[in-house]
């Protein structure tokens, strides 16, 4: 049994730029995707995620590096000889064929017998909950239904790997959420490796076993959703996934697994977890998630830290918004730096002032394990 479903080995892809020169779409990416894994390529548009997927599908060939599918180096193998199938962003259903003809197309290419094809088409349409729709034309179906047909058409081939290029991008939010769960359940049911391209971080976090966060052609971090969110390895990942605050400063002291940072424009120090290689005196940013901050009136009483200890700051509330489950506050430091703080509403009071109010003076405390120190860039 081969260990990896798909490997990208130091893959680079350059395109000629219409305006002259070349664009590097994928920049020396190495990714190993395990069998049965739900793997997402996540990043903003133009980050190289779709190009990576198209290279795995065989629509593009790497400029250098190698795509390996099930231990077979693909080289310039054309798409019709690869053991992968794709669900296209635009679905790309064959408009002149019925739904059943669309789904059976791939099986006809394998020259299977007619009864076998009919049986599998029927099963595939049932799997995506579209039984009895076989005789309709794609245009007669809703966007969500067309999406399911595209899925059935690819899955009916029983590929080793299913490639999905933003398949939910055209659906409305509610349907999207439903389909996310359905897709995940389907993937567990069929046990096929899914490689899923999306720019929607929530979607990636919900569905994936592992995620590769990409930007400007590079795979910046590869890891489980928890790792990506809790321990982003660079500023881009911390910023792109979820919400965060950045405080800038310089490394003052490095210990094993700990780093002390003196903050810019503030006579304060913070202790945090170093992310990546750091050295003394380096300009760094500290990433702090807004929901991982404690905001209290009296830190000694509430948390047991003295007011002049590291990671503890006096602040003033600039604006506060009560949104039910939590209260979202923007606070200002003495240096003028601002931070978002989200506090869960544990209390239940009818007095709006009981939560937080504009102009309120308070103390912030950020536990060191919630302060991630990373290189400025």
């Amino acid at each position: 049994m081969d260990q990896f479903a798909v490997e990208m080995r130091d893959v680079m892809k350059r395109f000629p730029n219409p305006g002259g020169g070349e664009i590097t779409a994928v920049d020396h990416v190495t990714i190993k995707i395990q069998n049965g894994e739900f793997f997402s390529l996540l990043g903003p548009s133009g980050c190289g995620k779709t190009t990576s997927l198209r290279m795995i599908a065989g629509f593009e060939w790497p400029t250098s590096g190698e795509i390996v599918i099930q231990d077979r180096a693909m080289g310039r193998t054309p798409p019709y000889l690869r053991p992968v199938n794709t669900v296209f962003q635009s679905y790309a259903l064959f408009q002149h064929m019925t739904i059943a003809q669309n789904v059976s197309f791939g099986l006809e290419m394998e020259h299977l017998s007619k009864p076998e094809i009919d049986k599998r088409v029927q099963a595939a349409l049932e799997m995506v909950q579209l039984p009895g729709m076989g005789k309709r034309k794609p245009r007669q179906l809703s966007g969500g239904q067309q999406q399911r047909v595209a899925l059935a058409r690819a899955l009916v081939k029983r590929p080793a790997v299913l490639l999905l290029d933003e398949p939910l991008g055209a659906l409305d939010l509610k349907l999207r959420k439903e389909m996310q769960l359905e897709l995940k359940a389907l993937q567990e049911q069929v046990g096929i490796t899914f490689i899923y391209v999306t720019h929607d971080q929530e979607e990636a976090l919900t569905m994936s076993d592992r995620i590769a966060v990409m930007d400007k052609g590079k795979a910046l971090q590869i890891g489980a959703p928890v790792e990506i969110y809790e321990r982003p390895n660079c500023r881009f990942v911390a910023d792109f996934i979820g919400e965060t605050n950045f405080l800038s400063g310089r490394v003052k002291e490095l210990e094993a697994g700990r780093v002390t940072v003196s903050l810019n424009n503030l006579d304060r120090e913070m202790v945090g977890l170093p992310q990546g290689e750091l050295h003394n005196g380096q300009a760094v940013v500290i990433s702090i998630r807004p929901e991982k901050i404690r905001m209290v009136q009296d830190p000694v009483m509430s948390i047991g830290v003295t007011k002049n200890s590291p990671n503890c700051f006096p602040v003033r509330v600039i604006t506060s918004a009560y949104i039910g489950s939590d209260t979202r506050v923007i606070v200002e430091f003495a240096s003028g730096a601002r931070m978002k703080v989200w506090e869960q509403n544990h209390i239940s009071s009818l007095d709006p002032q009981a939560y937080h109010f504009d102009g309120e003076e308070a103390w912030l405390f950020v536990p060191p394990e919630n302060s991630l120190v990373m290189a400025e860039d």
Partner: protein
Amino acid sequence: MEGTKSVPRPARGLGLIKKLREQPEYQGWALISPTIIYLILFLILPLLLVVVLSFLARGTYGNVVYRLNLDNYSRLFDPLYLRILSYSLGVAALTTVITILIGYPLAYYIARVPERQRSMLLFLILVPFWTNFIIRIYAWIMILRSEGLLNTFLLNLGVIDAPLDILYTPTAVLIGMVYEFLPFMVLPLYTSLEKIEMAQLEAAADLGARPWVGFLRITLPLSIPGMIAGSILVFIPAMGMFVVPDLMGGAKTVLVGNLIRNQFLTARDWPFGAAGSMVLLLITLVFTLIYTRKAGFGEELLV
């Protein structure tokens, strides 16, 4: 403007204008009236004239005698005329087939080059229309005649020993017809080919279809509407064409178009020419209907 509908007003002198203003169904007629008037004046009336004319008779001096009869039509069943009719059908059909065979790869190529080159190539397809048709046919005569460009070229190359006799043969007529009608095939074909998303072909390849299979199963069926539109645009005028056979076919090739023109201009037998026109009209109509029905794309063509 309150109550224009609910309060009926007594009709006065300007009833029609009032109706036009206030009633939607009259507004519709008013809006479409220029087209209707145009069609009545320049299509329906002349057509009726020809219909009536086809049932009249020719006088001794080429005048029209008002005596209703069916002689003109029965004369068309003369084997001589039937042969001309079937020959014309054959030439028009062959012209259509050849324009498809040449036009399809051309349209496919234009639809696949980068967008900037596309408009340039389409422009080149249309450039010949800037010159008068007759002049372009004379250019072809210059190319094809025995001391023409083609023969001189081939003789000098040593490919042939004696000049080819192309001009004033059915082949020359076919060349002229294909040349004239090619753009009418290429443009609708291009339009339908250009609409096919690359993703559809990628999907076919992804599902295991080799490029040739992808073409047969995806590209070809999706381009059928363009092929039908092009065929109609080529077949109908090819059926009535008389300039090309006149200039390039010599006396050997007589098509229905020549027959009809000769009745009107040379033989001065207008009623017989009118009958020929009616039969030509009917044949074209029937063939077009059968063709579109068979292909099952009739509706999409109208859109």
